[in-house]
């Protein structure tokens, strides 16, 4: 098709031809074309088939309010081709068709609509029950639009940007641009978002003039130029606003253009105030076959010609309810479309100059008339018009039926910002009943249509937003307010809800093929609230985000239920524009913490696992039973990177009181040079953390927490001392300090070589704590612990020195055959000693007494001082709790799997951890069992998953299994 190439309004560059492939045919477009406009220019009228009835669907709005032009583009499903810019070489395909969009084998379903009244799914296919699984398969196949396959890959680069500004303006039309310019006058940082690829909005394609005699498209370009020249306005074109959250956090996504370093970009803007200048879309006209290809909205037809240089049809009929329709009829007539007739729903109230212009062109205008039927097989061939009362009908042949009942404000941003919405009787719009804090409407969204008023309202909103963000604009705002008052205000909107038709094929929602008739059926079935109709008749839940039915549905429900109140709007939900998961994901960071030894652990063959927020070396060989690692610690010496341990310092006059509050032990007994192991409980007495406390001085302590609690430990202490007004400070040292655990009978020999303090058992005994420097430089806090059951040193070293100290110890241990051990080895070693790991030998409900740590609890401390003490006192006399016991399998070759349950007629407990011990040769472990089964030698029956009822035998044995006297850790 020949394009109109000379129009000053064009947004395509015909000097830059592009091509795309659709059904083995090549179509030509130009830079600036969307995929849909290029196809339309190439004669494509049917872009796909509808969800339920497989009706042919065509270009309707150009702004993506419905899924009509959703196609698969380069393998990506559900792309709205009407607002996707064409790139050279794109390959597109129609969706939801068997055959082609033009000839769909499933097109016959359209005739079967009588079989599918609203909610028919709920009333059919369940009798007999065997039918349903078969029917369901067919429903699944029939449903859905796009196709993806499991190995699809989304190509491209996805960017993220986080902006801060004083004012965000949503919408880059005349009102938005005026608002941005006004807000920028005070020096504020302004962000301007425009969803189309260029600024201009409703001025961009119109040749009528404003009060100064300037063509609107020229004015749009003037404003855009001013915006570009204003340094403190950051403008984002082709950036659709998708979300509004608390405190004016706005999210949007931008489509990258040629030369941008990203395919799409997720944008998050935190600004003090927001201007909503999103303008209007059109309210669809409801009549029979109102979505037949060839039926389109006013703006769509007008922009096809003016923006894209495509005449939308040869012979057109207009059925409109608004002056924009008349304006488009005049302009399209001048551009070469034959206009058979303009039916205007309004009897009067049209702009006289437009009526004159139509008369000059011999275009008949029928006031009080409306389209009732779009005839034609696949595309429109003829239109029936009638009076709005339905008394007289006339038919007009045409290939284009421009239909629009009126305008609909794009009020989504207000709804997302929690504004209450109410029906406005003058405009017929649903508008905010109260504005959200620091959010201001501008332009057509308020019901105005006069070009000068649009700009003036934008300027006023921009100034108000600037003021809300702290600027002093009193005088300018007063002047702007006067200017607005002097210009035309909101216009009366057309109120017609449907043409006088029965509505069997009048589609209120295109995406889900919901008709006026099906909405009536839903209401008759008792679903008389718009939100319920939405669900029952499936209206507005499709990809168009309610763009098509959003305004009409509540109006229709109010009419049909003969409601005497005002219509109630339905909700819209974010994202206001459907957005790729890839775009939301952005960079898709892997957020893990690495220990200071990460690289060297990796180089040493560490096999890493994600444990909580950390990546840790779990194994050092492919033997996940870790035999060599385990025996090397038991018989020789090994080193573990324990840097993930939570490490804190607490100091200040009330530090001890704070420790007393959260730890169950009497923390006043912590003495310098010694470590104290203790635990924290919650108010239910359940153990939440355990660790070691050391005293550095008066009211100055260090303590460790388990890896998993490091994030919450400070908060926990603060929370439980929140009413006390105590004076203490907590410093989280978790990341700034690393931990090396040096364990095994040869540990002392290794340490002695690396440090120059006396590490003899007398000078540094079990439970001792020492601070010293290595080579007068590296400060070390050393503790003698026994978690793995051997002679063991835990060295706390500044993170930056960790690698150095590790290497020194490694070198010192070389002669003894020192080697790394990982988390799993530690797990087995400590299990043999029956040292618990919280979360492994405890669950949510396990308290301190259940896991045998009751000895830690100092009962002489006042209960008010200790979190959990009251519950513990109560639990002491409660017989029915689970208790931690040691168990041994009857068959030592067959350790039960962790998580196996202990049963008789009921579940009586479960195996927490169990291994075949390489040290003792026994299959031993720990289990939580009901207390009546906790006696030594009690026989237990174990039910493993997939055991098919064959139970395993075990019995309760004393703990620990290894070195019960604890001599080895005290060597």
């Amino acid at each position: 098709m020949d394009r109109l190439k000379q129009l000053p309004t064009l947004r395509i560059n015909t000097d830059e031809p592009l091509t795309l492939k659709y059904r083995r045919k090549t179509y030509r477009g130009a830079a600036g074309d969307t995929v849909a406009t290029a196809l339309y220019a190439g004669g494509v009228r049917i872009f796909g088939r509808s969800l339920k009835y497989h009706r042919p669907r065509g270009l309707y709005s150009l702004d993506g309010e419905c899924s009509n032009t959703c196609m698969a583009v380069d393998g990506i499903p559900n792309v709205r081709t009407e607002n996707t810019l064409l790139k050279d070489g794109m390959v597109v395909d129609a969706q939801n068709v068997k055959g082609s969009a033009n000839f769909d084998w499933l097109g016959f379903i359209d005739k079967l609509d009588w079989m599918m009244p609203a909610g028919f799914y709920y009333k059919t296919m369940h009798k007999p029950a065997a039918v349903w699984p078969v029917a369901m398969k067919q429903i699944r196949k029939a449903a859905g639009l796009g196709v993806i396959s499991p190995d699809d890959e989304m190509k491209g680069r996805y960017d993220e940007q986080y902006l801060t500004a004083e004012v965000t303006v949503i919408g880059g039309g005349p009102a938005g641009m005026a608002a941005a310019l006004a807000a920028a006058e005070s020096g504020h940082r302004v962000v301007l978002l425009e969803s189309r690829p260029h600024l201009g909005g409703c001025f961009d394609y119109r040749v009528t003039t404003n009060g100064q005699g300037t063509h609107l498209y020229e004015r749009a370009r003037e404003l855009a130029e001013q915006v570009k020249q204003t340094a403190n306005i950051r403008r984002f074109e082709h950036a659709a606003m998708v979300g509004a959250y608390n405190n004016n956090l706005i999210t949007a996504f931008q489509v990258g253009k040629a030369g941008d370093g990203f395919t799409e970009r997720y944008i998050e803007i935190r600004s003090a105030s927001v201007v909503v200048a999103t303008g209007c879309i059109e309210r669809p006209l409801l009549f029979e076959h109102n979505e037949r290809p060839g039926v389109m909205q006013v703006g769509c037809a007008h922009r096809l010609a003016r923006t894209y240089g495509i005449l939308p049809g040869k012979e057109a009929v207009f059925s409109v309810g608004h002056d924009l329709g008349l304006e488009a009829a005049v302009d399209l007539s001048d551009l070469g479309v034959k206009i058979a007739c303009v039916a205007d729903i309004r009897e009067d109230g049209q702009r006289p100059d437009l009526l004159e212009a139509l008369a000059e062109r011999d275009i008949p205008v029928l006031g009080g008339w409306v389209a009732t039927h779009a005839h034609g097989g696949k595309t429109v061939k003829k239109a029936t018009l009638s009076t709005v009362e339905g008394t007289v009908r006339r038919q007009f042949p045409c290939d284009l039926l421009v239909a629009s009942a009126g305008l609909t404000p794009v009020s989504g941003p207000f709804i997302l910002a929690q504004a209450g919405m109410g029906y406005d009787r003058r405009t017929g719009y649903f508008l905010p009943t109260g504005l959200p804090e620091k959010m201001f409407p501008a332009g057509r969204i308020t019901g105005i249509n006069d070009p000068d008023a649009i700009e003036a309202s934008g300027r006023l909103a921009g100034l108000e937003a600037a003021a809300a963000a702290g600027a002093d604009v009193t005088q300018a705002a007063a002047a702007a307010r006067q200017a607005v008052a002097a210009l035309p205000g909101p216009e009366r909107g057309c109120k017609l809800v449907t043409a006088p038709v029965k509505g069997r094929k009048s589609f209120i929602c295109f995406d889900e093929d919901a008709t006026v008739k099906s909405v009536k059926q839903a209401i008759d079935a008792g679903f008389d609230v718009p939100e319920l109709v939405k669900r029952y008749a499936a209206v507005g839940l499709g990809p168009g985000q309610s763009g098509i039915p959003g305004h009409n549905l509540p109006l229709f429900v109010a009419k049909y239920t003969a409601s005497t109140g005002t219509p109630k709007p339905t909700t819209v939900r974010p994202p206001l524009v459907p957005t790729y998961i890839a775009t939301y994901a952005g960079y898709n960071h892997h957020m893990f913490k690495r220990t200071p030894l990460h690289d060297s652990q990796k180089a040493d063959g560490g096999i890493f696992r994600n444990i909580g927020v950390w990546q840790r070396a779990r194994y050092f060989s492919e033997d996940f039973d870790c035999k060599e690692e385990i025996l090397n610690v038991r018989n020789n010496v090994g080193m573990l990177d324990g840097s993930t341990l939570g490490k804190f310092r607490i100091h200040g006059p009330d530090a001890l009181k704070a420790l007393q509050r959260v730890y169950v032990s009497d923390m006043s007994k912590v003495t310098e040079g010694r470590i104290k192991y203790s635990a924290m409980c919650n108010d239910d007495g359940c153990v939440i953390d355990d660790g070691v406390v050391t005293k550095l001085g008066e009211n100055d302590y260090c303590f460790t927490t388990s890896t998993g609690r490091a994030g919450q430990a400070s908060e926990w202490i603060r929370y439980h001392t929140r009413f006390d007004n105590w004076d203490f400070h907590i410093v989280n040292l978790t990341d700034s300090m690393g931990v090396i655990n040096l364990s095994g009978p040869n540990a002392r020999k290794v340490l002695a070589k690396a440090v120059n303090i006396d590490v003899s058992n007398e000078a540094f005994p079990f439970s001792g704590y020492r601070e010293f420097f290595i080579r007068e430089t590296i400060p070390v806090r050393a503790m003698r612990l026994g978690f793995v059951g051997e002679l063991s040193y835990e060295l706390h070293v500044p993170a930056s020195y960790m690698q150095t100290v590790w290497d020194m110890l490694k070198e010192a241990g070389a002669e003894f055959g020192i080697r790394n051990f990982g988390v799993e080895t530690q797990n087995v070693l400590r299990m043999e000693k029956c040292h618990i790991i919280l979360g492994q030998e405890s669950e949510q409900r396990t308290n301190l007494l259940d896991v045998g740590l009751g000895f830690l609890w100092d009962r002489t401390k006042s209960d008010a001082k200790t979190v959990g003490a009251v519950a513990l006192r109560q639990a002491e006399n409660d017989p029915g709790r689970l208790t931690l016991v040691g168990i041994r399998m009857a068959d030592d070759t067959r350790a039960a799997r962790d998580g196996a349950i202990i049963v008789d007629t009921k579940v009586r407990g479960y195996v927490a951890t169990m291994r075949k011990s390489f040290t003792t040769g026994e299959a031993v472990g720990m289990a939580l069992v009901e207390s009546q089964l906790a006696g030594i030698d009690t026989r237990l029956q174990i039910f493993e998953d997939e055991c098919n009822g064959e139970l395993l035998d075990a019995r309760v044995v004393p703990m620990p299994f290894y070195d019960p006297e604890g001599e080895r850790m005290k060597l």
Partner: protein
Amino acid sequence: MFGKRKPLWGTKKRLKSSYDAVIIGGGLHGLAAAYYLAKEHGLTDVAILEKRYIGFGGAGRNTAIVRANQRTQENVPLYKEALDLWPVLTKELNFNLMFNNCGNLNLMHSEAAMKAARMTIATAQFHGVESHLIDAKEAKALVPALNISEDITFPIHGAMYHPPGGIVRHDAVVWGLAKGCAKHGVHIHQQTEATGILSAGGRITGVDTARGRIQTPRVLVSAGGYSAGIMYHMLGIKLPISVLTIQAMVTQPLKPILDHVVSSGAYHCYANQTLKGEIATGAHMDPWPNYTTQNTAHYIKHQAEALSDWLPCLRGVKFMRIWGGLADMTPDMAPVMDGNDPIDGLYMDCGWGYFGFKSCSAVGKYMAEYMATGNCPEMLKPFHLRRYENHRLMGETAALVNYTPDN
């Protein structure tokens, strides 16, 4: 089916001045309890009071997943019964609840998680509920879209596969139960807010509503996320419940790509495909107590990041709609079902968190029995309120949960 349309749950009824039982909350639990009261126990003089419209709350906001792979023996049989009831109710109500028995996969991302899953699986198998531990390759065979490579944030080690679970059309359950209620004479009063619960001498005497006072000897509070507030403001009873917003979302509709419900605790993310073809996804609550049901910017982004990792083929799919609902969380992730304590005739069914949908059918049945007979059925006994007073939590999760501000 094609005949003249009658309102599904009857014509609008006048609010009477007395009922044998009043149920506060026109959600799934309230509707189910009313249905069974009328049908099984002949207690047909029942009013359901719903402030908005039936199914407004969690009933219409959940993502419709059903399963019976809970962790403890107190819970598993209840959920199992609920699962078994879907086909029965479909028949009884003559309303297609669209039970898609597609099975659930719960992904495990470490050896430790695999072990933890064993306990749940063993418990299920012990109670005759099918559930298996499968490895990553087997999971991939079931869900070809799964990314089982090593270089994702949480590499997949395997999954807990629970074939009896699936998806039920949540709205259908609301409407079907309402239909059943109306058929047995229950009055459903929409747009009717309960404003007070009256008692005298330790007995329930009535309920105040925005439309007038009702005399009744029995009240069931089953108002989902609003139950704790109702109990406190109307009766001064403080429940150990924290209410949090929980969000969920759907993508644009697609042809079949996911044949199972797949979830991942590590990613805080589940995904399943509705019969309409949308991928429904969501998971955990926002970690601060609130009643807003507002969406947050970080959540939809988090969800996209998670799905990008473990279901990467969805990167080219668009999110279409996100919404929020309320989860009323108890300290042990198990509900409170109790009655006649501390007030005779007062029944409560709340604290369901995000499990209220899957359990509603069975719970309605037992709560109805409780209310009709005054005796607590065995099945509900473990769920009494006083367990918290005695610090006897139920162990529905291994990990500690905490929804108070210290978290």
